[in-house]
């Protein structure tokens, strides 16, 4: 529908009724809701509005040049290219303005209306930028769609032809721009708001998601590091985390030294037994606090592994020696104190104790 209107317009464009038709078209476009039921319709709608606006405000040739400059700036902002432009300073200023707006909106999402008012107040200064943005949008969409490419080509032709016809001077730029804003002020402001809100919402979402992630992980780390819950400041918390990691690494070093000394003392023939033995023991012995005997250390993890619900009961049972077969096994195992036999017996004990525990 809009494309048809555009083509009509391109056919009519030499007639003197250009301005009136344009106004009609803008009004018709504006009468539609800015966010349609389907995203395509809304996109088309926004595109058409931008299209009309780019036509209206890019009449002056100086404005066209400025539009080109700002269009490159906005393409840089959008695509984040690293190409250096000579007008980087103005781009930076605009970016700073935008980021300032973004921060304000990120902190309060409810102040959209306020920002909209701010946009409408700054509308006159930002018109060229937004129009260039819309131009950029039209170009981007033209890459995707042939029809849209046609229309953008039409707009460029129209721009050139209209500029040829009118040939404005640099002096009249202000006045003409002011005229344009006066005649289509509402539509322009709406287009700025629509584009701006989309852009701002997008950026806000990114910033918000990142902050959420960081705070979530910070909480997780706080739970993980002991004694970190009481610290409120992020700097102190980070210090605490760093200290904890350093202490853990130091503990690993200490265990390395112990282990190297122990392994230097232990016969190499023992290692297969260790391999069978330790793997079963290592995991659960860390929860058990019974370094009294090897056998108690052995029996306890078996309980812990098989009966996690009866963990406390089994621990107390081991301590007091209630279970008769278990006591017998313990007596048999705890008799030899030398390490290889205990290692061998430990595996035997595990094999024996499994059916017993399963029957239980």
């Amino acid at each position, binding site marked *: 529908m809009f494309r048809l209107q555009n083509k009509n317009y391109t056919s009519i464009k030499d007639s003197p009724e250009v301005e009136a038709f344009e106004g009609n078209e803008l009004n018709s476009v504006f009468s539609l809701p800015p966010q349609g039921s389907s995203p395509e319709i809304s996109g088309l709608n926004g595109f058409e509005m931008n299209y009309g606006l780019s036509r209206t405000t890019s009449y002056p040739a100086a404005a066209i040049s400025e539009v080109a400059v700002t269009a490159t700036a906005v393409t840089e902002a959008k695509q984040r290219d690293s190409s250096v432009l000579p007008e980087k300073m103005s781009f930076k200023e605009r970016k700073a303005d935008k980021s300032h707006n973004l921060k304000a909106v990120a902190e309060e999402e409810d102040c959209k209306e306020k920002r909209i008012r701010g946009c409408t107040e700054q509308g006159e200064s930002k018109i060229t930028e937004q129009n260039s943005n819309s131009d950029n949008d039209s170009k981007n969409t033209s890459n995707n769609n042939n029809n849209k490419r046609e229309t953008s080509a039409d707009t460029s032709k129209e721009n050139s032809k209209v500029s040829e016809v009118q040939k404005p001077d640099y002096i009249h730029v202000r006045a003409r721009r002011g005229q344009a804003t006066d005649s289509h002020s509402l539509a322009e402001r709406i287009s700025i708001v629509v584009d701006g809100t989309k852009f701002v919402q997008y950026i806000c979402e990114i910033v918000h998601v990142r902050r959420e992630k960081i705070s979530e992980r910070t909480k997780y*780390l706080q739970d993980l590091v002991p004694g970190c819950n009481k610290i409120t400041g992020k700097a102190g918390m980070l210090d605490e*985390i760093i200290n904890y990691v350093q202490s*853990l690494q130091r503990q690993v070093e200490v265990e390395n030294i112990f282990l190297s000394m122990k392994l230097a003392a232990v016969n190499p023939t023992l290692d297969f037994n260790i391999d069978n033995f330790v793997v079963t023991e290592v995991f659960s012995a860390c929860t058990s606090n019974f370094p009294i005997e090897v056998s108690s250390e052995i029996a306890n993890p078996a309980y812990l592994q098989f009966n996690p619900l009866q963990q406390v009961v089994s621990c107390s049972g081991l301590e007091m020696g209630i279970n008769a077969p278990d006591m017998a096994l313990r007596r048999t195992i705890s008799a030899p104190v030398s390490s290889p036999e205990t290692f061998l017996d430990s595996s035997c004990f595990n094999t024996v104790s499994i059916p017993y525990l399963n029957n239980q």
Partner: protein
Amino acid sequence: MTPQPLLMKPNSIKTRFAYGFLRALNSLNKNKPSSPSSPKVIFRRCRMIKLAADASMASAVGSRRAWSRAVLCKIRCQRALAMRGRIRSGGFRRRSGAGKGFGVGQTDGLRKLVPGGGAMDLCCLLDETAHYIKCLTTQVQVMRNIVDICST
């Protein structure tokens, strides 16, 4: 009659680390059956054990974590350099921007501690730090148990 695999979760990081670490210790002990306990030998053995612990921890975690990838890559580089006869520990770190509210110096400190942390952003760095802390705790537990068992 192998009771061991029944007793624990076979795919947990702890299990895999313990298996890998014990295997590495075994091979270490086999390679040097005669062990005179001079401090130089002990120091070298300590270094080897640390390497083995790091490698087995990182390989137990797998390559889905950035810090384990960094550790594995570092060990591989060290081994390749040691094969050639020169060991040079060169750390190439690049720093990305620090986050809001976090001091730059502290973030840098954390980056230096967590392996491979030089090339992460803050979000990823915190995530990796949490996992690294967990794995270090596991490592310390397992190694302490091994030491206890050897000493008894």
